[in-house]
């Protein structure tokens, strides 16, 4: 009889016991249970149990890193949904996109989210990089995490570009044809040296990218596998590394005097450290803390549950809200089916490559290989060439000099790029004056290389004049950002058929 009543009681307790076996800590009302809510959860335990108030300030992070991660999640989910219907073959790909568009329930919406989400992610990644740079968060001990960030930037662009081909429409076909020709551009150098017959790096790269001589079945499968398996896996690995490093490097960067500047927390904030630890938990939570925390709580930290969790959920939902709102009103582009006989004019790469395509219009090698390599190398080297410890955790460094240099550099960067572009558009470049000039001259002397030279010279001048490597870094980063923005705008809006200049796309000749 005792077993029977026990059985009844068990049945009654079923919801509670199942829940308790799932979530093995109590309601998150004490410091301990709040901490447990985070570190006893597989998905949350990458977070610290307590987070510094500085890291939660909107004005500091603007949630940009989270937006990137949130976009990735959204893209993964919608991407997997699209994979159920997409058929990666030349004969079926376009038709399957049309089917997704017209007959798959809500397929159009899902595809829109995937397309616009990808663009948002690229924007967010660039802005996140700018945030990290301008708050000097790449400095010791975060140098390698900055480098991982650059890897993530490259992966984001590669993911977006590999996805570009999949709809197999005219836009995709010709954008990727351009990309493949850029991959082939080292021939500009080997041709000039007359060694293409022996070492054809360009041809090898193009074949590696496309799997054949031109964009076709092999290229489609290749891009598909890269897009849905290889790149997302690598991305996952590097995202893991990136997040892990944030923890290991002591959380988000903050100024040394953050505690003093924040002052005491407001009264209504969820309790700030109610239980002083009886032993050091430096091993678990504050690996890189400089002092032992025995006998006192880490001031100015808040429990991650609920503060960080709410913030993350808010940013995630905000990203999703923006993406679905855009996707509801705007359809993702889908042009005519790819037709190798009818070239698009102008054939444009995805927008984030149009700055480079602007340089490519002078020299494929300069725009497609030389400048990207120089830029990425420069980005990677920044934390190693600027090792001044001051200014970490503040926008432009708290001192007014940083802000001024950033402003001055922005003005210089914009003026230089606009002047060089206006000159090239108004008067042409070497080829227009000396039609017989060897291409190798233009490879190394074109608006892109001229600008790079100007920007590097300017930043070296700032380093010497201001006697600060940090200010030099600010100068060159700001200049490159300005150059990137202006060249991208020119490539997007002011270039028409035959890559000629037009004040607006509405003035393009209708062909």
């Amino acid at each position, binding site marked *: 009889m005792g077993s029977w009543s026990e059985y009844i009681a068990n049945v009654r307790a079923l919801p509670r016991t199942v829940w308790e076996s799932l979530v093995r800590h109590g309601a998150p009302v004490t410091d301990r249970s709040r901490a447990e809510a985070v570190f006893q959860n597989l998905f949350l335990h990458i977070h610290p149990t307590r987070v510094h108030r500085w890291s939660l300030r909107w004005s500091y992070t603007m949630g940009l890193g989270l937006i990137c991660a949130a976009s990735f999640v959204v893209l993964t989910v919608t991407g997997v949904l699209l994979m159920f219907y997409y058929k990666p073959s030349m004969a079926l790909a376009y038709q399957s996109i049309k089917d997704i568009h017209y*007959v798959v329930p809500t397929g159009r919406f899902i595809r829109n989210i995937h397309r616009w989400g990808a663009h948002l992610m690229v924007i967010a990644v660039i802005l996140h990089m700018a945030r990290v740079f301008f708050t000097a968060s790449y400095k010791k001990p975060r140098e390698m995490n900055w480098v991982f960030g650059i890897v993530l930037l490259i992966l984001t662009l590669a993911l977006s570009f590999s996805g570009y081909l999949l709809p197999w429409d005219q836009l995709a076909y010709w954008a990727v044809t351009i990309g493949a020709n850029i991959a082939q551009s080292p021939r500009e150098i080997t041709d000039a040296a007359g060694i293409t017959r022996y070492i054809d790096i360009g041809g090898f790269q193009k074949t590696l990218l496309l799997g054949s001589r031109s964009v076709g079945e092999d290229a489609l499968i290749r891009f598909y596998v890269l897009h849905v398996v290889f790149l997302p896996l690598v991305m996952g690995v590097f995202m893991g590394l990136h997040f892990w490093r944030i923890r290991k490097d002591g959380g988000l960067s903050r100024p040394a005097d953050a505690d003093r500047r924040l002052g005491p927390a407001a009264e209504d904030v969820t309790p700030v450290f109610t239980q002083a630890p009886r032993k050091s938990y430096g091993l678990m939570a504050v690996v890189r803390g400089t002092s032992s925390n025995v006998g006192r709580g880490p001031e100015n930290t808040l429990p991650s549950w609920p503060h960080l969790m709410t913030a993350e959920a808010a940013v995630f939902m905000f990203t999703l809200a923006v993406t*679905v709102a855009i996707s509801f009103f705007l359809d993702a582009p889908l042009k005519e089916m790819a037709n190798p006989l009818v070239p698009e004019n102008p054939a444009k790469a995805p927008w984030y490559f149009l700055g480079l395509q602007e340089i490519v219009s002078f020299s494929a090698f300069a725009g497609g290989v030389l400048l990207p390599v120089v830029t990425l190398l420069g980005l990677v080297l920044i934390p190693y060439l600027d090792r001044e410890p001051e200014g970490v955790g503040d926008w432009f460094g708290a001192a007014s000099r940083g802000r001024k240099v950033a402003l001055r550099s922005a003005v210089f960067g914009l003026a230089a790029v606009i002047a060089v572009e206006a000159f090239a558009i108004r008067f042409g470049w070497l080829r227009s004056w000396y039609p017989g000039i060897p291409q190798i001259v233009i490879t190394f002397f074109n608006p892109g290389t001229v600008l790079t030279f100007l920007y590097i010279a300017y930043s070296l001048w700032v380093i010497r004049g201001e006697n600060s490597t940090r200010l030099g870094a600010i100068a060159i980063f700001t200049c490159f950002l300005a150059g990137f923005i202006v060249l991208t705008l020119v490539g997007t809006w002011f270039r028409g058929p035959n890559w000629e200049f037009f004040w607006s796309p509405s003035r393009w000749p*209708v062909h």
Partner: protein
Amino acid sequence: MKKLLLASSLVTLLFLVASGLSENVFVSWKGYQKEYSLLLAGRAKDPERKREARNVPIELHQVVVPDLAVFDRCVTCHRGMDNPLMAGAPNPFRPHPGDILNVHPTERFGCTICHRGQGAAVNFREAKAVDAYWDYPLLPRELLESSCGICHDPKAMAKTGAPVLAEGARLFEEKGCHGCHRLGGLGGSLGAALDSAGLRTRHQLTMANLPGEKTTFRWLDLHFKDPQGIVAGSLMKPDYPTDEEARALTVFMLSLQADRELPDRAVARDRHRLLSVGHDQGERDGRTLYDRLCRVCHGEGTLGIFDKHLGKFVPAIRNPAFLASVDRRFLRANILAGRPGTLMAGFEGGLTGPDLERLLDFLAGGAALPERRAQAAAKRPAGDARRGAAMFARQCAGCHDPGEKGQVAPTLSSRAFQENAGDAMILATIAGGRPGTAMVAFSGPGGAGLSDAELSDLLAHIRSLATRRK
């Protein structure tokens, strides 16, 4: 923070629900199907049928014809397509007009094979696909006959359903379009070959000067009426066709889809014959060939013509004096290779061997035209090219100046001329002139009085032009 979370979540939820509804519930084709089922129920005779009509499931319909690469969802809205009960109903419920579906059932041919448009689309704007990133927008009703020509011989359709198409095919030959455009293995190379003209997309045509909707069929129609107005600088002769003629030609152009892969079962027997022996069954006499290929520029060919449109003199190729000075070999070479520097483009590949001989017979007009004219006896003083040059500059360069663009007479330095015109022919032409053209006789009775020596000098100079060619 919590407010942002709440607001974002609500916005997300709102758009998820909204898109779920707009893409799955409030779609136009479902509305049409409901309307159709009500209409059908209203028209049904007995209660059994009425109930059936009311309970028709609302679902997507499509016609899939794999060997024609057809996936057409048109029948999702056009439910009454094969239902005689729906006669007189408003579109999209009306039955298909005529009895064409008896011969071409939808399940074997689909819809877009004839109507064009985007079969995958499930709303009318995108199915019509004008300005919608689709290569072949819906054809207007008056151009529909063009699609018959995909599988049938246009000329065989005059009395069997496609009179406009047949008329277009006839006009194409009558107006001498073959003179510049190659079609079915016949024609010149000055204009574009037209075997797949009907497959061209709007991106392959110059749309800059086309007002209104940028469709290939509007382009064709207006281009027939005003070639230079649509393509600035086009060499195509304005023919001022009537609206009906332009429409017939447009229909014929749209029907030309040689590159389209079709399953054998879809191609009519007359079309197989057409593909194997050409557009007029290979039976062409010399007169017909002349009218199709030459007349558009050379006219009747007995008198030299100044063509106002081209701004050039066109030689009189049926002029007896001309024919007396040339031989078959010369004419054959000129027809096949053309005359560089003039608008006479080569017909190599646009004319079969037997056709060419028939054409030469016709040009000769019954007179004897030797394969090679014997070279005049070599009793001629060798000319002095320098003296000849001075004379050439004075007497000939006005029309024949090889350095001037827009010259009015044939280029004498061209390879075709130099290799194929014999000395005797050149001398005879200078001496005797070309009656009916601007080329007067420079020697002999009534001529300009050049001596034999001077003729030789000129010949020497003309021969020396060959080496100066760039």
